[in-house]
């Protein structure tokens, strides 16, 4: 009997490994490397240029005593909650409506989805304009006779973050609707029939049966929305530039402003690190559950 030796483990699937080099490099150099670099420099007092001049936790002390950062965090939470809840609810409702075997489904779906093709810059501009009290909705309504009508969410500190969400929802719910629709279409027809035979009204079927069955879709959607929330930046810049005052500031903008406007890299990196930290705390356990386990038999 011949006895071929077990070949080295390294060279099994060699092509697959070679093909994954871009992924591995991106993961290691850009995401891990870049993150580590950022974290490292967040402990320095780098200004315009990165310098290894360690100052311990100074940047973090300053960060957490800056009212703008606190406002940003608060805004992110509000914006996050609104986007999450409303895009899920609206996206799901639209998907449910479209799932009623209606005519012109394609047309409606296209209409709901087209804003997704537009950039946040464009979205921001349009909505800034629509919401501008001097010639937007408020003016139009006032011209119609309701002179006391007031609707200026982008110019009112206390509600500006909600105003920004209007545009965000307009832009983003289409995609969510699409995901939900795909999920609904994946539900076994028999479940619907069973529910009808049981005499369960449609809304109860959705609420108690279908939605719980769509857990995986909701999770995917949640991740997509969440990723968008953390990154929100362009939209705020295009609509309010963080104003009025600092009422609509968000963390990503804080990072950007302090890194580049204020030329205080250390401060920007400290804020980055805080953002990364929260992302990691939320995402890593989820990712492990979702992708780490054995998914295939």
């Amino acid at each position: 009997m011949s006895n071929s030796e077990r070949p080295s483990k390294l060279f099994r699937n060699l092509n697959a490994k070679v093909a994954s080099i871009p992924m591995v490099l991106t993961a290691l150099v850009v995401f891990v490397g870049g993150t580590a670099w950022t974290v490292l420099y967040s402990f320095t007092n780098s200004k315009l240029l990165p310098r290894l001049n360690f100052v311990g936790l100074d940047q973090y002390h300053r960060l957490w005593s800056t009212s703008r950062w606190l406002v940003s965090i608060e805004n992110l939470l509000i914006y996050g909650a609104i986007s999450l809840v409303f895009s899920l609810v609206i996206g799901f409702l639209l998907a449910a409506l479209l799932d009623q075997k209606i005519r012109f489904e394609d047309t409606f779906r296209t209409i709901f989805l087209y804003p997704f093709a537009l950039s946040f810059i464009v979205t921001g501009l349009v909505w800034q304009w629509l919401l501008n009290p001097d010639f937007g909705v408020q003016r139009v309504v006032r011209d119609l006779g309701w002179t006391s009508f007031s609707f200026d969410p982008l110019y009112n500190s206390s509600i500006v973050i909600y105003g920004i969400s209007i545009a965000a929802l307009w832009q983003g719910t289409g995609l969510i609707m699409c995901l939900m629709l795909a999920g609904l279409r994946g539900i076994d027809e028999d479940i619907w029939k069973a529910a009808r035979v049981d005499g369960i009204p449609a809304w109860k079927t959705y609420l108690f049966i279908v939605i719980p069955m769509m857990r995986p879709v909701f999770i995917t959607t949640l991740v997509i929305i969440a990723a968008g929330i953390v990154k929100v930046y362009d939209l705020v810049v295009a609509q309010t530039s963080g104003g009025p005052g600092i009422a609509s500031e968000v963390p990503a903008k804080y990072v950007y402003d302090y890194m580049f406007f204020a030329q205080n890299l250390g401060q920007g990196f400290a804020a980055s690190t805080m953002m990364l930290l929260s992302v990691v705390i939320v995402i890593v356990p989820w990712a492990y559950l979702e992708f780490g386990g054995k998914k295939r038999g």
Partner: protein
Amino acid sequence: MMMAAEIANPSVSIQDLSLNFGAVSVLQTLNLDVADGEFIVLLGPSGCGKSTLLNCIAGLLDISDGRIFIKGKNVTWEEPKDRGIGMVFQSYALYPQMTVERNLSFGLRVAGVPKDEIAKRIARAAEILQIEPLLQRKPSALSGGQRQRVAIGRALVRDVDVFLFDEPLSNLDAKLRSELRVEIKLLHRHLKNTMIYVTHDQIEAMTLADRIAVMKGGVIQQLDAPQTIYNRPVNRFVAGFLGSPAMNFIDGRLEKDGGDWHFAVEDVRIPLATYAFEKEPAPGPAVFGIRPEHVAFNSGTGWPFTATANVEVVEPMGSDTLVWLKLGQQNFTVRVTSERTPKNGDAVSIGFDPLRASLFDGQTGDRI
């Protein structure tokens, strides 16, 4: 085609039912009366419209024409829940995130049935189906057979007159299938409900049904007791569809030879003296069908017909053995008990009694 005999007080009565999906006509003026307490099986190949018919009865599809009566009430336009039916689906369609108990009670709670009434009904269903220990589990923690029982339970708690089953066993493995078949049979005997059961598995049909409706292309071909369908199929389709391995068919001609009818193929002539004709025969092309188990080996004399054939394949199946023969140009299957099996390539002599056979018209395929 043979239609249903009239039934006095049908539990379910379908009258001139038609159903089109757009331009495609799936069911055409179909009539079916189901007696009270009867177990009807709808049997047919895939796509013949069995599920469609069941869904029409349940009210899950809008019919194009006709009427449906359940317990004498015209339910053509009723909502499914008001028809007094319960339905069990192939995939069971259990609500995956609810416990078995909630699966059973959900419909009742929505209908506003009082709590203690619900509890009572669930207790009863659980007892009948022996799923008491499973009540607090989720469907994902149940085996296929248990899920199936829960699905039946969901129909059971609703106290309905008619049970509809859409291939409830086809997702299960052979062993479980045969066990659950018996369970359903016992359940029917116990409950005495009307049951309409869709399957494409002929064993299920044969074992469960009081009457089988064999369907093809949206039309009921034959509606009769299982043994009748098995032994006296009304046409070639029904004959070929039932029985595994399938009936042997031989294409040939019907000829009158003196006073006696013969079936002639090539140089073989099968005398039909013992055959019970369905209608007055006429000479012409015909198909002769005989089931594998009605053919015997080494039969010597005593059979109205004998011949010699070559063994092609022998398939031992444990309890009995299938032998695939070449009889002239025709393939021929014989089923024998495992004891006396020929070997590949053997030339064997076979014999059968045309009494057991079926004859079909060469053109229409109808029984002669």
